[in-house]
């Protein structure tokens, strides 16, 4: 997928003014934020479980070479073929080769964010393979020619009416208005595609080293259909997705659906190992697993390694006040919200996403809800420091920060300057006690007034011995 993260600021203005998007985003907050809080307490000892989950992910990341090789060995033993891909373009090439090699003309796909990194669908269509997305949300996006705006609820930015219009236009059937009817229509349109496809493409939530299995969590059943009916199955995932054992996967499964959609468990959890046995009536004859790096290995052993613990639940974006107001498209690439603000510059280049590390109030909600305890605000702060070192900040911002740093090192002058500034702002605030514009921060005051400071400064209060 093309990276448009550099256009972030302009997109934010557009998204904030988009009334339909704002309405759609309110659903996300009620269903996902309240949904999570309703079931997360079912976990007997949440903090202990989160610690255990983080430990499982760290165990693998600290010895990733070993765990990947073990997984490869076990998967190969059961008849799977493991491929390694440096970039998204390599994934596309490998999948196209597999398709050509097995004479594949049509493919059905369940949701995979890693395949979105690659822009796989376009590449396969260029290779002459007809690809159909089968996750309801991804299917809607495919026929609308749009990108996902959330990693779990990809079509959260669209309302029912837009989907009704789209279905009526694309399917040439009478326009349906009920959500259940729309789902029924998509089921009936997609059923023949499942039954006739030569190849199924899926992601993998986890790779289980112990058994060489891929594990996928789904609700709609399309993930099961895609991996059961076609004669070729291709699973695409990132190299960081390995977990050691079935027990470790279970610990993570207690957290993943609860954090993602507020479900105690997803409808289906499928553990898929190898190809079909000779007596089986179903299951793929060929099973290919593609492991994508795309910049991930560079993060190992460095100060950003914790980001690789991520299990893609989306809780950080659901709880992020920035995401809640602008939605996912503004972020410009596959991964939005706090995790996306970190992953996008790390995987796609700092220079291509200059605003994302700053698109956070650092309120800390993301770190509180992260099931694998990724210190997201700390990582965002580290990226901001890196931007400073790389000279990516504007001249104005650099000067302001330098001036502030100098002042902070000279407490006497700091007190005097801030004292004067406070009085000046109070004076300018007038009767309404509001400032309409702030010099040097007109972007901020363009959309809101700044309340003028009231009463004494902290230093004055402190000198008087007052405690708040």
């Amino acid at each position, binding site marked *: 997928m093309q990276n448009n993260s550099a256009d972030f600021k302009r997109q934010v203005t557009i998204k904030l003014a988009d009334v339909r998007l704002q309405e*759609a985003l309110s659903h996300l907050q009620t269903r996902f934020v309240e949904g999570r809080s309703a079931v997360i307490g079912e976990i*007997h000892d949440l903090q202990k479980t989160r610690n255990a989950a983080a430990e499982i992910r760290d165990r693998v990341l600290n010895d990733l070479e070993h765990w990947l090789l073990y997984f490869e060995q076990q998967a190969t033993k059961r008849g799977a073929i493991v491929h390694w891909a*440096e970039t998204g373009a390599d994934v596309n090439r490998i999948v196209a080769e597999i398709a050509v090699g097995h004479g594949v003309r049509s493919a059905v796909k369940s949701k995979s964010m890693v395949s979105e990194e690659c822009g796989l669908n376009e590449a396969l269509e260029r290779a002459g393979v007809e690809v159909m997305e089968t996750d309801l949300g991804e299917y809607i996006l495919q026929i609308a020619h749009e990108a996902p705006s959330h990693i779990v609820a990809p079509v959260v930015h669209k309302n029912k009416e837009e989907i009704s219009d789209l279905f009526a236009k694309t399917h040439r059937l009478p326009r349906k208005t009920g959500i259940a009817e729309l789902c029924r229509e998509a089921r009936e349109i997609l059923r023949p595609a499942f039954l006739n496809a030569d190849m199924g493409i899926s992601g993998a939530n986890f790779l289980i080293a112990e058994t060489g299995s891929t594990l996928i969590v789904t609700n709609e059943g399309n993930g099961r259909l895609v991996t059961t009916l076609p004669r070729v199955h291709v699973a695409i995932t990132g*190299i960081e997705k390995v977990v050691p054992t079935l*027990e470790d996967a279970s610990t993570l499964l207690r957290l993943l659906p609860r954090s993602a959609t507020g479900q105690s468990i997803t409808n289906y959890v499928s553990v898929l*190992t190898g190809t079909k*046995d000779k007596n089986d009536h179903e299951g793929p004859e060929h099973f290919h697993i593609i492991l994508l790096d795309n910049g991930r290995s560079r993060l190992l052993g460095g100060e950003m390694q914790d980001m690789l613990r991520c299990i893609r639940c989306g809780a950080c974006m659901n709880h992020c006040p920035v995401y809640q107001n602008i939605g996912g498209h503004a972020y410009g690439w596959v991964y939005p919200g706090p995790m996306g603000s970190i992953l996008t510059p790390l995987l796609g280049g700092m220079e291509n996403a200059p605003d994302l590390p700053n698109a956070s109030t650092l309120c800390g909600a993301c770190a509180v809800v992260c099931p694998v305890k990724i210190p997201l605000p700390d990582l965002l702060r580290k990226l901001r420091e890196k931007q400073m070192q790389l000279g990516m900040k504007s001249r104005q911002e650099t000067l302001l920060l330098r001036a502030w740093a100098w002042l902070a090192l000279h407490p006497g002058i700091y007190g005097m300057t801030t004292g004067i500034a406070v009085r000046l702002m109070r004076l300018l605030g007038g009767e309404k006690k509001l400032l309409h514009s702030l010099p040097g921060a007109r972007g901020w005051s363009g959309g809101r007034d700044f309340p003028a400071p009231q009463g004494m400064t902290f230093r004055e209060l402190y000198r008087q011995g007052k405690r708040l």
Partner: protein
Amino acid sequence: MNARDKILGRIARTACAESGEEIAAYLAQHPRGPLPPPPENLLAHFAERALKLSSDILETSERAEVPAMLARYLQQNSLPMRGVCWPSLTNLPWRQAGLDMQPRPANGHDLVGVTGTFCAIAETGTLLLLGGEQTPATTSLLPETHVAIVDPTRIVATMEDAWDLLRREFKQPPRSVNFISGPSRTADIEQTVTLGAHGPYRVLLILAPA
């Protein structure tokens, strides 16, 4: 150098925390993480959780009663009296109950699919089904109604207990191991949960001893 060597080469430069023996020991022990407290009554807990997932539940003490019980359920819900069942379930008296259950994998047109269950997990009200020649996965997937016969003595407390049972009874996991937790659903449109996406619209559990 191919992609595999390049990727592994970059990864290998980072520190190794555990020795080969430590990793082998970890795999051999497959330690459990923090578990939910064991329920007082496995069956009651399982049933409570399964109902929450929108599954229907019936219970009988006689396995031979299952077909008649299913026939009544299908009639009450205006569902067809025919479908497919796992080949391993052909010995039940389907015909006597007025049911036409074909012992074959489901195709896209079958409306009712009857399966057994490898075990059930009380923690979440989940069924665990293993795919195989006698136990095709499509039976629980393609039809609009999935009926699962659950042996109450094979309800375990946690996912971890289920893995132990699997390890005891099989050398290695079969090709497909599926957790099933109620009818398929989607909330992609306006985050509104709708039952019946690409899989079954309804799941009926019949608790009956083996």
